[in-house]
């Protein structure tokens, strides 16, 4: 007897989580085409709970978004001569430069109104993966203070695990 044509011969039952396959480097970000295919909403997973909403603080600084993705106000360009990726806020007051050095991705982030940061983005062969890490750090309103930035990096960008130093960085005089 012929089966029902509307019932697939093979089906997936249950919730599904899709991640990207980075080959020998393990799991990586899910391909963007799949996000677009499914028209996904975006939220932050933090200890299996939604990240807390952060509103404008007493200093009038813009709230740090729950999702640290780079907004359209960030311009991103690749300098093919130097192999650097430059981020610049639309008004030019904040900028970041990402580059690869000795196999590790580095970033120099200069937010408006805050101290510059040198960030080690880790070791990966994937440009997209490195930029994804950079996006998480700078994907915030540019008008942040160093205190907020540090708090953001530790608590919001989910970089506090895996041996992240617990103490604040010590500013070095220039």
């Amino acid at each position: 007897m012929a089966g029902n044509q509307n019932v697939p011969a093979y089906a997936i039952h249950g919730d599904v989580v899709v991640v990207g396959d980075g080959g020998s480097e393990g799991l990586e970000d899910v391909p963007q085409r799949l996000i677009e295919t499914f028209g996904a909403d975006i939220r932050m997973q933090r200890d299996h709970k939604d990240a807390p909403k952060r509103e404008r603080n007493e200093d009038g600084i813009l709230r740090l978004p729950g999702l640290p993705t780079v907004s359209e106000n960030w311009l991103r360009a690749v300098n093919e001569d130097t192999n650097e990726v430059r981020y610049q806020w639309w008004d030019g007051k904040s900028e970041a430069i990402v580059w690869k050095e000795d196999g590790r991705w580095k970033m120099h982030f200069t937010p408006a109104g805050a101290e510059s940061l040198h960030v080690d983005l880790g070791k990966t062969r994937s440009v997209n993966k490195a930029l994804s890490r950079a996006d998480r750090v700078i994907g915030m309103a540019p008008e942040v203070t160093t205190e907020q930035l540090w708090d953001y990096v530790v608590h919001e960008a989910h970089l506090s695990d895996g041996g992240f130093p617990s103490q604040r960085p010590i500013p070095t005089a220039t």
Partner: protein
Amino acid sequence: MADNKIVLWSPDIMKALFIPADSARKVEVIDISGQDDIHALGGGISVPSRYDSDSIMFVIQRTTREMNVRATGHIEVPAAERIWQGTRTCPLTRSTGTL
């Protein structure tokens, strides 16, 4: 202006796509730090399957075995297209590389 020196020994935080079996719930992009997070989402059991060349689909097994229509539809269409095109290979769409 002072210059802070920060070294981030960051774990691999990555974006993942969460596709609920319940079609009334929206598909979401979530951040996970690894496969353990996926297991935790599923209550301890998640089964990896591969339907694309550049992604892995973890099916979370629970007591309720509701069919995931969206995920099923996704794996059916590419398979049908590959048969139609007479090939068993998956197109590579990643734009990764090294500088």
